């Protein structure tokens, strides 16, 4: 948390570099006083506060991205908008919250397989995918997927034919990529909700394919 990396750093309002120890102690004291008073009044409880912090730190899942993919599979008009302007198309479904970054959706086909990495840190489209998995932040994945994507994909169990072109996309503070996986065969009869259940996080990073029904 302490290292500030301008590839992914929040804007200046979030910096606390100019906050002195004394100032911080005073702020902590103000918060402790409020917590003590509210606790006495029975309006807050430590367990409830801990639960809230845990929930907001962790509870944004890849289901949002799965809904985007399912809509694109089901609705050709939506898919066209998604490939044209992903940020706007994703906002149509009510997902947003990125702070100035643009989303770009790259489409997998029978001949092209896309995979996403952030080579410098761990830029990740969290409003649609939740928190990045540990391996996404790992130096080994970040360097190897660029040099030798086929063997990295093979380690994830994703085998590609030799004639499939692999494209590696490097996410950054400005652009966050999301992979639109190929719609699996035999899913013509499925509705959007059933389609979304086939789309897991790894398929939207591009290290896996969508599940078969």
């Amino acid at each position, binding site marked *: 948390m302490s290292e500030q990396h301008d590839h*992914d750093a929040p804007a200046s309002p979030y910096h606390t570099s100019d906050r002195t120890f004394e100032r911080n102690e005073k702020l902590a004291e103000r*918060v402790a006083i*409020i917590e003590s008073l509210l606790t006495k009044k029975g309006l807050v409880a430590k367990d409830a506060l801990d639960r809230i912090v845990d929930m907001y730190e962790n509870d944004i899942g890849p289901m949002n991205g799965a809904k985007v993919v399912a809509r694109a599979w089901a609705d050709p008009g939506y898919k066209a908008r998604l490939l044209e302007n992903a940020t706007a198309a994703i906002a149509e479904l009510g997902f947003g919250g990125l702070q100035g970054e643009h989303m770009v959706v790259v489409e997998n086909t029978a001949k092209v397989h896309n995979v996403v990495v952030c080579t410098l840190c761990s830029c*990740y489209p*969290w409003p649609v995918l939740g928190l990045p998995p540990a391996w996404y932040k790992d130096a080994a994945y970040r360097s190897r997927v660029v040099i030798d994507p086929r063997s990295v994909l093979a380690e994830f169990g994703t085998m590609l034919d030799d004639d499939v072109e692999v494209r590696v996309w490097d996410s950054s503070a400005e652009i966050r990529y999301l992979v639109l996986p190929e719609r699996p065969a035999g899913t013509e009869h499925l509705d959007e909700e059933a389609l979304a259940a086939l789309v897991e996080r790894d398929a939207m990073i591009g290290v896996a394919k969508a599940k078969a029904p």
Partner: protein
Amino acid sequence: MRDERRARPDIAEMRGVTPLPRKSGEMVFHDDWERRAFAMAVSLAEQGLFEWSEFQERLIESVAAAERVDPQNPSRGYYESWLVSLERILEDKRLLSSSDS
């Protein structure tokens, strides 16, 4: 399971000048008091003691006030403005006074 512990989109995905500071999706807290101040505001709103929009209005004001002189170098950090907003809404709603409970 997920439904029992779901972040409210109106809080988790605030737009404009008051989005929660995040780094690759993970909330950025520099000190534990920031977590406590965050959670108290959310907890009180969850109990219906005020509407989230009422808190957010105060947060927008506090952030704007901190950026008035120099937007690139605000006079206080995000959660300091958050704390100011919390203190204001507690006072406006008289949640700290002992006489009305």
